[in-house]
């Protein structure tokens, strides 16, 4: 029986993978070839999707960008035995793009069937949970601290401190909440976890529950991710059937239950306190901090709220030890980050590497330059609230502190590349517009400032380039940065000011340094 893999993540589906899977099964049957079609996750080489693989003695041979129309020709070329064809890539594991990566969190992605509990355990799953069950909770928090794992959702807060706080809090019920409201353009690593290796997120959440004595977890997923929601729901059911979840986790005296909550299309619900409000069934309006959610979180109870990647990275830290993870990375940025190369790029996808890699390496060595073939001009790192980096900043190592030193953010490692036809003034105006659309409305700088920001940028772009307007814009940005309740209003100025500082010509302003510093 030949195994043929056709990915089932939503990128592959968006390019017709379901039709390909059907065509493969039908064509094999027609030719009397015995084939098992496995719906694996994505390898993260998204530009090659649908990436069909066939198991051979040599390894898994890949065929890229397979359309259902190609399937007959592929069988003619002896697909079942990895035969030659113009779409044949060779052994997928040895492709340099993959082989050069340091996939710790994403070690299994694309290799396994996302919903197979057997696959998961065969590929190292549950090792972390078993260790965590044997470890004292205080020691577990210390281990997490020692690993250096910081919040991968963008804020980079040490996960161990959060867990320690929740563990120490006394309350009748504590919660683990996973922030899967991945609304930032240029990011899809959370989605890939949920669609391609959901058990590692589930395992990470169970570990969090055991360590902090929380018995109930929620995964808050944005409504724009229906495939992720469906996969998670099925995975949770299977995990419960397997005894991983429930009253007795892996036969222990520890209980943990988990459910998926669906968002409803609100960007600001990615902010942790707005997310908690939404999870409680209310409008997603930001809460003032303090108190922090670790002490007063969901339904007023102590709550660990971590991003998908943070929680999904927990199992490998427990399985291999804090030192193993900590030894990757640089400075205070330990471990790896799954970079997401997106936008105008030839080879977009998921590149997991230790901190310290540069944007230039990611754009050219992995990304292969722009999709348009034109020179790359700017890259926005860290989502819609991250700065635009001009080429002069592309050699700064990806490190939270090194980026912060130039006013930029690594965030969750999402990178959107723009070519030389881009207009950064347009993108700056869009940033303000987006903030106006998505602001929760609680604080004035964000609610009103964003609308005023759109107007001022529009005026400048229309030709009113007097210093007065530019000063007004900078002043407005200053108010938003200093006076907003959360990152929505507080960081919208980042893309705006970086566009203004590095690409003034797009605003119709001269490049004189006098117009730079405020």
């Amino acid at each position, binding site marked *: 029986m030949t195994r043929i893999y056709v990915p089932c993540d*939503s*990128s592959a*589906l*968006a*390019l017709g993978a379901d039709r390909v899977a059907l065509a493969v099964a039908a064509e094999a049957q027609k030719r009397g070839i015995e084939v098992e079609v496995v719906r694996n996750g994505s390898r993260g080489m*998204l*530009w090659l*999707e649908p990436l069909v693989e066939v198991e051979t003695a040599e390894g898994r041979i890949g065929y890229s960008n397979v359309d259902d129309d190609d399937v007959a020709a592929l069988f003619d070329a002896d697909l079942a035995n990895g035969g030659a064809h113009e779409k044949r890539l060779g052994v997928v594991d040895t492709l340099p793009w993959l082989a050069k990566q340091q996939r710790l969190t994403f070690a299994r992605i694309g290799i396994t069937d996302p919903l197979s509990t057997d696959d998961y355990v065969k590929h190292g799953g549950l090792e972390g949970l078993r260790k965590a069950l044997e470890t004292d909770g205080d020691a577990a928090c210390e281990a997490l601290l020692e690993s250096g794992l910081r919040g991968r959702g963008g804020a980079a807060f040490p996960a161990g401190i959060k867990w320690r706080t929740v563990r120490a809090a006394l309350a009748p019920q504590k919660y683990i909440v996973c922030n899967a409201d*991945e*609304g*930032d*353009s*240029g*990011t*899809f690593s959370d*989605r890939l976890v949920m669609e391609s290796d959901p058990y590692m997120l589930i395992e990470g959440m169970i570990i969090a529950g055991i360590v902090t004595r929380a018995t109930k977890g929620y995964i808050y997923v944005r*409504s*724009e*991710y*229906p*495939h992720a929601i469906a996969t998670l729901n099925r995975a949770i059911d299977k995990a419960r059937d397997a005894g991983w979840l429930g009253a007795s986790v892996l036969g222990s005296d520890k209980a943990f239950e988990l459910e998926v*909550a*669906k*968002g*409803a*299309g*609100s*960007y600001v619900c990615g902010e942790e306190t707005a997310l908690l409000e*939404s*999870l*409680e*069934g*209310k*409008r*997603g309006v930001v809460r003032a901090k303090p108190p922090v959610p670790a002490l007063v979180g969901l339904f007023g109870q102590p709550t660990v709220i971590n991003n998908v990647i943070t929680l999904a990275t927990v199992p490998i830290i427990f399985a291999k030890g804090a030192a193993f993870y900590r030894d990757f990375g640089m400075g205070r940025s330990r471990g790896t980050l799954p970079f*997401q*190369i*997106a*936008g*105008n*790029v030839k080879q*977009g*996808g998921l590149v997991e590497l230790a901190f310290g890699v540069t944007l230039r390496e990611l754009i050219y060595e992995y990304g292969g330059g722009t*999709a348009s073939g034109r020179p790359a001009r700017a890259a*926005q790192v860290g989502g*819609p609230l991250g700065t635009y980096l001009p080429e002069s900043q592309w050699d700064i190592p990806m490190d939270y502190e090194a980026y912060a030193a130039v006013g930029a953010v690594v965030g969750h490692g*999402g990178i*959107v*590349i*723009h*070519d030389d036809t*881009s207009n950064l003034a347009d*993108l700056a105006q*869009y940033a303000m517009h*987006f903030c106006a*659309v*998505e602001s929760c409305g609680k604080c004035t700088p964000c609610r009103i400032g964003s609308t005023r920001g759109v107007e001022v940028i529009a005026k400048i772009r229309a030709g009113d380039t007097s210093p007065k307007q530019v000063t007004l814009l900078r002043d407005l940005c200053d108010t938003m940065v200093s006076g907003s309740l959360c990152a929505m209003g507080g960081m919208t100025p980042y893309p705006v000011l970086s566009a203004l500082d590095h690409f003034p010509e797009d605003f119709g302003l001269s490049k004189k340094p006098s117009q730079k510093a405020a």
Partner: protein
Amino acid sequence: MVQMPHKHQNQPTGTPDERVARHLKKGASLLAVLHAIQDEAGYIPADLIAPLAQAMSLSRAEVHGVITYYHHFRSEPPARVTVQLCRAEACRSMGTETLAAHIEGHTGCKFDSGHQVDTELETVYCLGQCALSPAMTINGELHARVTPQKFERLYEAARVHASAEDLV
């Protein structure tokens, strides 16, 4: 937004109270109940707000506030063909604004202006396909690397499909 059953769903039966009761589950949040209502009816019918508020011990204002706060919830039935186009940064870098203009020209509709004839065009921010931009959904089905030609083909197919459903 994708799983919204589009038109097509049978008109929900029962009085407003019965329809609300059907979707109330123990421990379910207001959002979860609203999702259940919209998944069945395609939108949140106005006559369910009062019974829903009463059943959940909320004010009508609170329910109305939640419905109108979230982009996903609609207060009107969906069009026969709903197009959601991502207009966020990654898709912008790959010409989604040009594509948006083409879509408006081809359909004769405007984005974010509600129902027009049988089509509604909606702006969304990020469908998670940022390495395969531009991305969109048509009647809930996700598509990546969309070109004007690909849009026209998919849109016309969706219209034919919707018409066929009307005849059933």
